[in-house]
């Protein structure tokens, strides 16, 4: 398995190309699939709906977490141990 991974890493451009072809295939296949059992109007009528949804949701999550992280949620690892000056002095 390690050899296979190293082979794929060595041929990264080919792997990326194959992945894009696969993605295109997956997206294209939605045009052939019966969506009559879909739950909502959007799924039934918007082509490649779940492709858009997957990409947008992932991008949105990355954006939200990036913003939250920078707005103070991500902080120094010693935020609790040094929450009081006394605690730091004791350490």
């Amino acid at each position, binding site marked *: 398995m390690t050899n296979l991974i190293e082979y794929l890493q060595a041929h990264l451009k080919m792997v990326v190309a194959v992945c894009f072809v696969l993605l295109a295939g997956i997206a294209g296949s939605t045009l052939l*699939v019966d969506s009559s059992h879909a739950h909502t109007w959007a799924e039934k009528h918007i082509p490649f709906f*779940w492709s858009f*949804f*997957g990409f947008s949701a*992932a991008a949105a*999550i990355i954006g939200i*977490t990036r913003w939250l992280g920078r707005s*103070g*949620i991500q902080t120094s*690892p010693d935020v609790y141990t040094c929450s009081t000056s006394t605690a730091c002095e004791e350490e």
Partner: protein
Amino acid sequence: MTSSFIHPSLILICGALLLPFIQGPLRKPYLFLIPLLTLSAVVLNSTLTGNFATVSFLDWQLTFGRVDKLSIVFALIMGLMAVIGTLYGLHVDRAGEHMAAWFYAAGSLGTIYSGDYLSLFFFWEMMAFSSVFLIWFRRGKQSLPVGYRYLLVHTVGGIILLAGILLRYQAVGNIAFDLMDVTHPQLYTWLIMIGFALNAAMVPLHSWLPEAYSEASFNGAVFLCAFTTKTAVYVLARSCAGMEILVVLGVVMALYGVIYAVMENDIRKLLAWSIVSQVGYMVAGIGIGTNLAINGAVTHAVVHILYKSLLFMGTGSVLYMTGKTKFTELGGLYKKMPATFFFTIIGCLSISAAPYFAAYVSKSMIITAGFDHHLNWASWLLMFGATGTFMYNGLKLPYFLFFGKNNCSSETWGKASDPEWNMLTAMTIGATLCVLVGTAPGFLYALLPYEMEYTPFTTYHLVETLQLLGFAALAFFLLKKYVEPVDRICVDIDWLYRRAGSAFLWLVKHPLQWGDTAWGEAYRVVGLQVLMTLSRFWSWFDWNVIDGIVDGIARLVRSLGGKVRILQSGQIQLTLFYAFSLAALLLVTFIFFQLL
């Protein structure tokens, strides 16, 4: 105890109590045997239906063995988890750690089989008090305070639950553990739900989980990830099914866990956040309350135990071998830990609901139930959360741990390798079950509490999932520089109570301590001198007044005695002379007064 029912908790408890006496070469077979016997008991119990092991206690009827479809499926997975978890930590020498794990599993199984609130509460607390040792046994710098915080939070949860149980008993007059009237919730309904919710790590009562599970010992975390939250899911499914607020709370959990997991730098804390998120799906399913939704919640609980324990075993192996858990101290490990990488990938695909892996057959049930119940907003948000799950667990975890930038020090790199045979065997079992459930879920569906017609293997579901995962992966690789782990921690709601605790500590250490010192000094200067003066006065008073009176009386008596003593010569004629003289004197006096 009814003859046909064997309580698996008893096997685990007795096994745990005997464990310290089993030494040497017998230890490992014994460690494997007890959980296996427990699982066998659970399997045998699953052939029964009804209430067993009923005991009269005061005015109550305690039921230790309620066997129905809901308890059977949860007991089976917990029994199986006891086997896998013990096998994973088979080489651990500390008997105490195995004992804690077995008591913990016994508490979970006891809760699942309980038919009344009293026995449930007993086993519920057994879980809390035994599981804390799985954190303390890591013996890290933070293990002790984290364990105490865990215990404190669960004690508060236990008190809330107990208050609810007592109020419910006062209101309805029995302690039967059944579905509550969730359409007309009373105070006790809320208290019981909150007590359960705390163990399910519902936001905002969740902060104990990421902290405790990431701080537990490498094999303790495997137990922790399976029992507490899923037992809470069981009791919620039993008592609060259809409670609408749970849909909202479940969705919040699903999204909250995703956000924090994406930001997390610690591999095991990421998985702990993932538990918050995944339990959110189960809680939402319970809140929806339809047959499909409850079945979905139960199925997801079962598969979650399988893939989450597999993931904790994978990351536990990294911790066990390298001593590190941060992305910023790891990376590129696929070369050194190929088997661990392989099993972890199966866990990652399983949690991501990749086609033919575990969660593929469960998550969609809950989401479908939401759409069917016209809770579209909930289902859309759960789908949004599912995309996030794939991103942090299916992509971020394996990419930055096994590929990505190699942040390992030479020492870490040198230590990294696949772990011992028992750990690999446990991971093999976990991975096999993940694939088995994902490809052939029929045997699991047959165990579910309600009849349903549901198949996850439709072309539409397959294409939908592939699109979702494929394009989320595209977004991840295009934007991955924005989610690269950094050596920082994420502040959570626990910041509030930690700040409150710090403020209280400051209050104690500064104003209160100052007040106490000032009082002590004032007492020393003023109080002590006054006291000494008073003492001297009372000493003088005692010596001169009290003792003076007492001693004076004594001296008077002694003086009188000395004088009277001379009358006692011992000669009878003198005594008679004095007596008659006195009598004559008295007689003469009497006559004299009569004549007057």
